[in-house]
């Protein structure tokens, strides 16, 4: 019984945390982008614009729900849910701190920790793309359809390289359990020995979350808004939430796999975890402010012809190295 309650509480806390971080992230992104571009960013609602995301949320809640004529209603409504639920789910296996000892119980700092945590995470994030594809398909809009197609192409080009890029870490740690991987980095973060895997992972993680310069499925200047062209109000907000929570998830996975998870001197482990994620989030915004968008065919070519072979070689090299070391 106690375990069930603990899991429920943890789940609730995490969901609320993620959703409020989403709100703060939208504000931070606009503020930081503003700084990059010589403008103040939102500064009207609340002190220094700090309540902008609350106003945005309220506005979206009160928006009229529009379902386009000719849309497949059921699929159209369920698509944003798939994206959001998958995004929230994926975070469940990520340990954000060392186990906590409280009321005679040992509480691990993740909701559920299967010993193949990383596989679970990849499986769930792959499900998230169904939301995009179905949204594009069901909206009865040619731009949405193209956006959905692009997201499919993008996922199959990058998921593979992403999976391979972390295999090196799994081999080096000798486990697929995220907790074990973190413990294995007590002395040396994997970003050192696995630098190739890290670089590939970072590229893939940007592609995976559809962020600039890989934001093809929603390329504003080509496809208006891509797969979510026909979405408004909270349904649109769900896609946005999914995108930002995915950003947090892939960042925390990068932290867990390559940057030693919650390890770090002086500060409490949870703080370290947050700092490392924040660095990645800043990196996402920085990319968006700087880079132009890749073209669809070049993006696929890059995924298949560059990232995948390099990731494979990296896996091989790690395997050989581990075998020799043993």
């Amino acid at each position: 019984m106690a375990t069930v309650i603990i899991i429920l509480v943890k789940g609730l806390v995490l969901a609320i945390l993620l959703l409020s971080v989403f709100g703060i992230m939208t504000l931070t992104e606009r503020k930081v982008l503003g700084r990059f571009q010589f403008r103040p960013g939102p500064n009207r609602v609340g002190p220094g614009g700090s309540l902008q995301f609350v106003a945005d949320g309220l506005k979206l809640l009160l928006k009229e729900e529009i379902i386009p004529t000719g849309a497949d209603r059921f699929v159209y409504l369920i698509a944003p849910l798939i994206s959001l639920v998958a995004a929230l789910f994926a975070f469940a296996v990520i340990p954000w701190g060392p186990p906590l000892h409280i009321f005679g119980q040992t509480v691990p700092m993740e909701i559920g920790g299967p010993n193949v945590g990383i596989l679970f995470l990849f499986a769930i994030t792959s499900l998230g793309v169904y939301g995009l594809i179905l949204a594009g398909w069901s909206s009865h809009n040619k731009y949405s359809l193209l956006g959905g197609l692009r997201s499919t192409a993008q996922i199959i080009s990058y998921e593979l390289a992403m999976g391979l890029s972390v295999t090196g870490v799994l081999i080096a740690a000798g486990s697929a359990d995220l907790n074990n991987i973190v413990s294995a980095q007590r002395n040396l973060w994997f970003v050192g020995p696995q630098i190739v895997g890290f670089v590939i992972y970072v590229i893939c993680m940007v592609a995976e979350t559809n962020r600039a310069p890989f934001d093809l499925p929603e390329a504003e200047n080509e496809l208006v808004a891509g797969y979510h062209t026909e979405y408004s109000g909270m349904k649109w907000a769900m896609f946005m939430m999914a995108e930002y929570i995915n950003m947090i998830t892939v960042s925390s996975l990068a932290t867990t796999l390559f940057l030693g998870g919650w390890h770090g001197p002086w500060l409490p482990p949870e703080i370290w975890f947050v700092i490392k994620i924040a660095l990645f989030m800043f990196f996402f915004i920085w990319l968006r402010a700087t880079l132009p968008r890749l073209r669809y065919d070049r993006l696929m070519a890059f995924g298949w012809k560059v990232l995948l072979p390099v990731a494979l070689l990296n896996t091989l090299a790690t395997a050989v190295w581990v075998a020799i070391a043993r």
Partner: protein
Amino acid sequence: MAETELGKVDPETGLKPMVINLGPQHPSTHGVLRVRLALDGEQIRGCEPVIGYLHTGIEKNCEDLTFNQAITLTDRMDYLSPITNNFGYVLAVENLLGVEVPKRCQYIRVLFAELSRIASHLVWLGTSAMDMGAMSPFFYCLQQRELILDLIESAAGTRMNPSYFRVGGLLNDLPPNFVERLKKFLDGFPAWIKEYDRLLAQNPIWLERLKGTGVITLEQALDYGWTGPALRASGIDRDLRKWNPYSSYEEFEFDVPTAKEGDVYARYTMRMREMEESLKIIRQAMDNLPEGNWHVDNWKIYPPNKADIGRNMEALIYHFKLFTEGIRVPAGETYAAVEGPKGEIGFYIVSDGSGKPYRVRVRGPSFYNLQALPVLVQDRMLADVVAAIGSIDIVLGEVDR
């Protein structure tokens, strides 16, 4: 018309392409351009620009206004570089009148034409970078353009639609501290050109997107009537400032950059280099600015100044006649063209001897450049359409007139 042609079944494959409307409301068609595209996946099988959504009847409206009033309408064609339009128009009217404005006026006109060329190129750079998904250059460009608009405002009183050039002169002489302010801009701007290049031309993604995209051969470009930097990117140095100098351009030293490739990247470099050349011209105009009168001394063309009207009966009468009847332009017809930021912008004016033009016909470079869009995008990707539209730098106000 050809509307049904686009979506027809391909006889070889038996497949029907998807026809998609890019515009008239679309983030990157630069106004209300509508492009019908036949898509096979993301590949373009057919393209058809549809224009007319911004038709304003400017040419026809000019017939209802006096020669000086019509200048305000020319502002609104290529609204990114209104001064160029003023320039072509007043040159045409002055041709009909057979007058030449004093040197100082010619130099000031050159100075402002080049300033607005830079302003126009800045908007082009910012928006076409935005089309490629790079958002920050847009703000960096518009920030500098703002400084130019401030300069224009200080002389003309308005930022966007200055109507600064008048038949036979200018609205005003340069304001007292203009040269200092201009110097400040000239000192700061070259560093920014470098910065834009650093952000874009040294970025592999940008090069990847632009090089080899939207290619047009010199022959095709000439056939379509291309002019301006877009044509020069295909390998000919046709620049009216050199080929047919007007307003003392022959006294300025500058180069006309050309390229051979004819792709989007070549057109990008053309405009970037042109901004540098424009800076040279502005510097020369500023340093060698002649003293003297800045309008023709002819009360039949340029109104007498306010002080004279109070003292001089004759001045009052001329002033009254000018502002009620307009300038009496001798009957005849003429064509005058200037090298605008987008290409040759020409005015063909017919006068019947009254105070209003009988017919004004505008050769807007955007209209001719836009026609070649299907050539640029045939069998390319959807994303290249956006790049191609950006690279020919159209303003719909000028296409539809």
